[in-house]
């Protein structure tokens, strides 16, 4: 299953809630959620822990827009819009944690 998150981990608890509930599979961080997978963010440790249970993808254009393209944590995989489409197509279903 694919889980999509678009909120900053330091602005509300959406990502935390996703990580608590989701059974495993793929997580795609887009929009303000990309900050969660950047080095030095206080959510970094929780994100690193999540890598043990999930495959974590991060939308590169959203990293670039925010000036943090060079700060992606190790273990997270950057994807472009084509990669986004592939993730959606290759998973049986998808939940957007709005």
């Amino acid at each position, binding site marked *: 299953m694919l889980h999509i998150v*678009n*909120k*900053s981990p*330091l*602005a509300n608890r959406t990502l935390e809630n996703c990580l608590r509930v989701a059974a495993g599979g793929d997580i795609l961080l887009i*929009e*303000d959620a990309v*900050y969660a997978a*950047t*080095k*030095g*963010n*206080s959510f*970094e440790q929780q994100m690193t822990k999540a890598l043990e249970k999930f495959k974590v993808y991060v939308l*590169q*254009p*959203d990293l*670039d*827009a*925010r*000036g*943090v*393209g060079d*700060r992606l944590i190790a273990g997270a995989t950057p994807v472009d819009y084509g990669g986004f489409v592939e993730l959606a197509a290759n998973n049986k279903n998808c939940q957007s944690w709005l």
Partner: protein
Amino acid sequence: MTDATVKKFMFVNRKAPHGTIYALEALEVVLITAAFDQDVSLVFLDDGVYQLKKTQQTKGIETKNFSPTYRALDGYDVEKLYVEKESLDARGLSEDDLLVDVIVLGSAEMGALMAEQDVVLSF
């Protein structure tokens, strides 16, 4: 314009730059306020500090890259930019990561500065 009509305006920016329209709208209102010769301060708190991050490139998400505008504020006599230290620390950012020169304050100093304003506008 006489001094009596000048008020202390503070704009409090607490949202990351591209996920919502708040940051861009705040900039628009700041520029309007500056045109009325008011005492304008900009504050960047929480995810708002991300608005000032260097090297923002919005080509890939096809939106306006308004981050260079922060560098132009000086030209509109908007020179008081305050950033909270705790917010920078929580995001692994330092002053060197920011587009413009700012004054870094601790939470308590920020709260005191906020309390002395005539008008506080929240974004």
